[in-house]
């Protein structure tokens, strides 16, 4: 591990699903650039290959825009970080190829970053939380985690589909387009009557597939106003998350609750988590919108922390890891962050 106090600059690349992002950040938590472009399918969900083609197409533009924003040259960068997983194979390969090329060309270390860990680290930094219970919700991930014994341990997760995916598919099927989070929330705010839907909490785990099927069936039957179905749908989803978060707080005894990931943008969900935080007298924060969705800055910042802690990989060993779990990653930099946020 590096013991010096030198501030290093790392370039980070995000390309796990539909966003190509490049960020520049320092090991002391300064975000120098954060440029992101997202693929929006004309219809349907994300097709991995189509998304990958889009990511390749926008990559050069995003990369150079980020360099311009940061106002530095490639020679000033100490390392290049890339999200090697979890994510969609074809998409991951786009970012990995570019990162490998930069590493070779400029003779700088290549740093493997877990996408989920990066969501957690950027939240800890910007919301100034040292040791929170983390609720990480997005289109592809749904998990509750907290630091214990060198890793972010998973206390609860989905047993089938991710919550964001559940919401997006519902939105798409009822004609609200993609991504659907905001539109579904907005529709739900006009509903008032609760219609029963499967509420599936198993221990600390969640299941969303049954709710999605049931909500779509209600929609097709047409017996209830779509506003009431949307209202019941989001109430059920977010209540399940709140319940599991509350269990997590009680079990872990953590004094901070941090919401990260794309679904963190939902005001309705935030309100529920605020309520349980007040009840348990813990501090609640939600990651800022610019760092909620997938972004390059979180990869760059996490990469800078990792490089400081001595984490890097050889180019020939930098395989993508589509199913790389958050709890498979050692976090030797966990305590380094303390001085930056307190």
């Amino acid at each position, binding site marked *: 591990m590096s013991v010096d106090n030198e501030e290093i600059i790392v370039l980070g690349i995000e390309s796990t699903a539909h966003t190509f992002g490049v960020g520049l950040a320092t090991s002391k938590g300064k975000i120098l650039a954060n440029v992101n472009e997202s693929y929006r399918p004309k219809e349907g969900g994300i097709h991995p290959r189509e998304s990958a083609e889009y990511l390749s197409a926008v990559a050069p533009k995003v990369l150079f825009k980020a360099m311009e924003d940061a106002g530095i040259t490639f020679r000033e960068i100490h390392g290049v970080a890339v999200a090697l997983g*979890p994510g969609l194979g074809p998409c991951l390969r786009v970012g990995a190829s570019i990162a490998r090329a930069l590493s070779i060309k400029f003779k700088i270390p290549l740093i493997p970053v877990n996408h989920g860990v990066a969501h957690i680290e950027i939240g800890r930094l910007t919301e100034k939380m040292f040791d929170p219970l983390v609720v990480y919700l997005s289109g592809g*991930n749904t998990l509750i985690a907290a630091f214990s014994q060198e890793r972010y*341990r998973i206390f609860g997760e989905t047993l089938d589909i991710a919550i964001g995916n559940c919401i997006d598919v519902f939105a798409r099927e009822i004609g609200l387009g993609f991504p659907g989070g905001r539109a579904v929330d907005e529709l739900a705010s006009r509903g008032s009557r609760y219609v029963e839907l499967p509420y599936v909490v*198993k*221990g600390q785990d969640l299941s969303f597939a049954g709710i999605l099927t049931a909500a779509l069936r209600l929609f097709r039957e047409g017996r209830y106003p779509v506003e009431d179905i949307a209202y019941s749908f989001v109430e059920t989803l977010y209540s399940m998350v709140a319940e599991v978060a509350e269990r997590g707080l009680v079990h872990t005894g953590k004094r901070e609750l941090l919401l990260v990931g794309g679904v963190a943008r939902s005001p309705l969900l935030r309100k529920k988590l605020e309520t349980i935080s007040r009840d348990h007298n813990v501090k609640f924060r939600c990651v800022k919108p610019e760092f909620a969705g997938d972004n390059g800055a979180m990869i760059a910042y996490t990469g800078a922390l990792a490089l400081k802690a001595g984490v890097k990989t050889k180019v020939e060993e930098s395989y993508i890891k589509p199913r790389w779990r958050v709890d498979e990653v050692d976090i030797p930099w966990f305590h380094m962050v303390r001085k930056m946020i307190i």
Partner: protein
Amino acid sequence: MVSYGSKDDNIISIGAEAILLLDEWFGLPAVRKIRVRKKYRETTLDELIRRKRTLIEARLLIAAHEKGVPTPIVYDIDKDHYSILMEYIPGTKLRDIVESLPVKLMEKIFFEIGYHSGILHENEICHGDLTTSNVLFVREREAIFFIDFGLGAFTNRLEDAGVDVHLFLRSLESAHTSVTKQAFKAFINGYRRARSQKTVKMVLDKVEEIRSRGRYTSR
């Protein structure tokens, strides 16, 4: 902590979804478990969940007890107040003492948990929240008791048995990292004692499948 305006001296514990009060039943020490209103939940949904869980918990506790699985005896149910009055077990949560146990005793306890979990599953009872927090240990008698069946179900689906075993394994991995392997091995040995070889294999395959599902692929 949360305040419910009750006399504090009766409160045994305040959990995530219920409070436990010390009570009595015809002179016997008893526990009253009351599922409390959750402000973050829509009222209709909140009442629905509390009623369902109170009833299913009581039913499963009774059914488990009938099959010889150690659980607190249910004395009374008050579904309008979402409460169950049950036997008081003077034990501690297994979660808090696992690391302090001698290896032999630790293995014996996990064997028993595995065995009784197998009995539950053989009788189409799934616990729904099988963790070391939901097993009480009474040191004097070296006895265990299963509690907190509110997320359980009467079911013979392989998936549900698989989820129980998966949840238990994960509770070991997250809370008892240093003894996970030994404890889970003892658990499975006990589980094998209660179920056929073929069934155990199917359940373990299911656990594998649950743990490898495509839930981490993504953004």
